[in-house]
């Protein structure tokens, strides 16, 4: 093929657009993550400084029976968070997509607004609301529903509640987008074929929005596993999550190599979901929301 300067499809021209972003992400995202991996084999010297090395001690510690429950607990909380987000998010996404009419955009915007109040402040507001002598308990007592108040905060429920509140929007938007893309006449056709609405939902709507549900679940699950804010502010003695563990290793216990090893272990646990998501995102490359855009 002749080398043609003017060929519009010439690779060189468009490839140049990949360069700044590619180099940036490579140097400031991939290389740093490799550093985490490298440091996870390191140790802490006498002055408390992290040193690179090739030891497996940190991994032995990370797989200590003591820490496995922390990781499992984090995954359990994250799964519960994704499930509740789905339960809360699907009907509302469905409602807006199908019955929102001209107010659709306002309804969606209203869902997104709370997301733009600082996560810390929002979580803190929950503490104020749900504390033993907080507003909710005062209201319950005034209504005579409870005498002593209900312990909401410092429980696993509060942590999951905080996570749900923090990440709900990541569930709603992809589901909404997939419902929006779905042809409404399919539901009508489904009514002819399957009859009852619940069967129509199971056989038509749900399969059609599978991609959105999957994307939403992954986008809620992944950050929830690594979260440390919710457990710190809303949790109790038995809600310590892997995010807290890692954060403590970096900023309280000053054991960076162990923190790095924990990070690597967490990422390994998550990589299955990440890979699954990347595959489906590449398949749905045309669809920005399923791929994670808010």
């Amino acid at each position: 093929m002749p080398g043609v300067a003017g060929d519009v499809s010439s690779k060189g021209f468009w490839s140049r657009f990949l360069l700044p972003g590619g180099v940036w992400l490579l140097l400031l995202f991939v290389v740093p993550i490799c550093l985490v991996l490298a440091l996870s084999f390191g140790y802490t010297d006498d002055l408390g400084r992290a040193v690179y090395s090739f030891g497996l001690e940190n991994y032995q510690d990370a797989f200590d029976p003591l820490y496995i429950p922390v990781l499992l607990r984090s995954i359990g909380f994250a799964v519960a968070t994704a499930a509740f987000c789905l339960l809360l998010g699907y009907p509302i996404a469905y409602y807006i997509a199908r019955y929102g009419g001209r107010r659709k955009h306002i309804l969606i915007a209203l869902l997104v607004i709370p997301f733009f109040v600082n996560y810390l402040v929002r979580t803190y507001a929950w503490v104020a609301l749900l504390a033993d002598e907080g507003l909710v308990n005062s209201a319950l007592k005034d209504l005579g529903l409870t005498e002593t108040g209900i312990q909401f905060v410092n429980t696993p429920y509060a942590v999951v509640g905080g996570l749900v509140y923090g990440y709900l929007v990541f569930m709603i938007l992809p589901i909404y987008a997939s419902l929006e893309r779905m042809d409404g006449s399919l539901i009508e056709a489904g009514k002819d074929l399957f009859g009852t609405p619940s069967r129509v939902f199971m056989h038509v709507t749900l399969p059609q929005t599978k991609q959105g549900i999957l994307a939403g679940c992954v986008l809620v699950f992944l950050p929830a596993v690594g979260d440390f804010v919710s457990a710190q502010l809303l949790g109790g003695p038995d809600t310590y999550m892997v995010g807290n563990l890692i954060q403590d290793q970096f900023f309280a216990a000053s054991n960076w190599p162990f923190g790095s090893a924990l990070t690597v272990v967490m990422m390994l646990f998550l990589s299955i979901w990440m890979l699954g998501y990347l595959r489906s995102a590449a398949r749905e490359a045309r669809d920005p929301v399923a791929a994670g855009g808010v």
Partner: protein
Amino acid sequence: MTGVPPTTVGSGPLGKRKAKAREDGFDRPRFLRVYSWFVYLYLFIPIAVVVIFSFNSVKSLQSFQGFSLQWYDEFLSDPTLRESLFVSLRIALITMIIATIIGTMLAIGLVRAKTRWSPAANVLMLIPLVTPEIVAGISALLIFSQLGIQLSFWTIVIAHITFSISYVTVVVRGRLASMGDEVEQAAMDLGATRLQAVRLVLVPELWPAIVAAGLLTFALSFDDFVLSFFTTGEDIQPLPVRIWSAIRFGVSPTINAIGTLMMVVSLTAVVAAVLLPRFFGRKESGIKVLTGQEE
């Protein structure tokens, strides 16, 4: 949702609204509407608490004693807190500009270039979106320490940009993919060089998506805590880091004032993302761009 033919609705009280489908089972507008109202309530109650108690006249989060601006006054009269607000704004602004430029270029490259490396770049671009923020924070902290770069304003900015590029790319790429490449070809056909085609046609055509992505990035960066927490250094800390330090050791209602002010800033960015495209004479709204469902 198109293609749902209007059918008769049994119940009267729905009158105000044009209900469009039969009420039965899950697919029941009234049930869904009530349900939705509860979700909205759940979402807005804490926000309301923050806003209302930011005007409380006493230092309490339990009872509202009267209207007062003292917490705003306390915030504004503390020069370092005020400085933190400006730092947060500056970080968000710089992040927005640089991430939007790089992310848009990446999106264009990903859609248009067909090199051996574009699938790899495609994966690379998506990974930050599925990486827990704490991992990004730690790895940023490590690379800066390793390179001997002092943690500062700029390390926060760099960490924020790294994370924001992917958001921009995903939003812009969605718009670009739906556009097809005939528009640039038309420009070249009419005598524009490749760069002119990008500058005169492609970027203007993508502008609503670029604006939306940029403002989204602004809001995300402005509110970010985790990345800032790991990469903040000797310079004035951004507001969320100050909030974190404060929350861990007792809290004053100034936090509510700060939270309310931050919400106003973020909302301004989001509202601008929704409305700005109209000023560019487009019919599609920013929300549509953000939720990826134009045309």
